[in-house]
């Protein structure tokens, strides 16, 4: 009870303290201040992912709240085998994809894309990484959710192929192929929208 009435002040927690150490401290003390630090570190990033995937600001705000409740209630299940950021991003992606499935029944999320089994052309990373932000946002909004999410995992969250594979329950070679296809799709949509720039 005393914790709830007189929580440790956020300023008492060193800024250099790792996420994993904060989780340990939170679990052992149940002090809200530790959770507050994690919230401040990640809420904006989680909101960014939600708005990229859900494309609706109000939906994204509600989702941030629900995702943090999930994180809070499942904190004890965090084993420390992966990075804390990877763990919470996987909760975020699963939550958003599930929300899209329930709301829109996006067909790209329900079935594997069987239309193209050719080996895709390799798109240079620089093409994506150096793109002007406005255009990047437009193209990301236009491509299917499954392609958008895998590109965010790779280039925004800098997750390894192995980590993405664990999150999506796919082999590493399958993930590499999915990334290639997503990049190819991205380039195709970009070319369609910005014909004059190509």
């Amino acid at each position, binding site marked *: 009870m005393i914790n709830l009435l007189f929580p440790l002040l956020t300023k008492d927690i060193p800024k250099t303290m790792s996420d994993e150490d904060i989780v340990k401290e939170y679990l052992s003390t149940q002090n809200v201040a530790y959770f*507050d630090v994690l919230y*401040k570190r990640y*809420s904006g990033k989680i909101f960014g992912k939600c*708005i990229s995937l859900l494309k609706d600001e109000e939906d994204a705000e509600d989702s941030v709240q629900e995702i943090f409740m999930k994180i*809070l209630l499942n904190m004890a299940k965090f084993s420390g085998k992966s990075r804390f950021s990877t763990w919470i991003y996987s909760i975020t992606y699963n939550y958003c994809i599930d929300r899209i499935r329930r709301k829109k029944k996006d067909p790209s999320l329900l079935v594997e894309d069987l239309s193209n089994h050719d080996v895709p052309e390799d798109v240079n990373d620089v093409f994506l990484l150096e793109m002007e932000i406005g255009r990047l*946002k437009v193209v990301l909004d236009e491509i299917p959710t499954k392609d958008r999410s895998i590109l965010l995992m790779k280039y*925004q969250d800098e997750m390894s192929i192995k980590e993405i594979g664990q999150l999506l329950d796919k082999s590493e070679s399958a993930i590499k192929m999915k990334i290639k296809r997503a990049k190819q799709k991205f380039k195709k949509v970009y070319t369609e929208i910005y014909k004059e720039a190509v």
Partner: protein
Amino acid sequence: MAEDNKNRTKKNSFKELERQQAEQYRKNTEVVGNRVKGSLGTIGLISEIVELYFSRIVDVFLKLSAGPESPINNLEKEEEE
């Protein structure tokens, strides 16, 4: 690994987009954060109450399931008085 090293660039527009979106969210951080912390406080309070009163509730149920106190106990109490 070779593939990862290929096409390396210092710029990352995806990160920049993330930073801009986080900035956009900053104005709402306090509102949503307080809602989450409110829920957290409620959960904590409920767990504290459960922790404090659970043993007493168990006692009450045990007493209820055992029925009225036995007459022998009452007799012993009367003798003590």
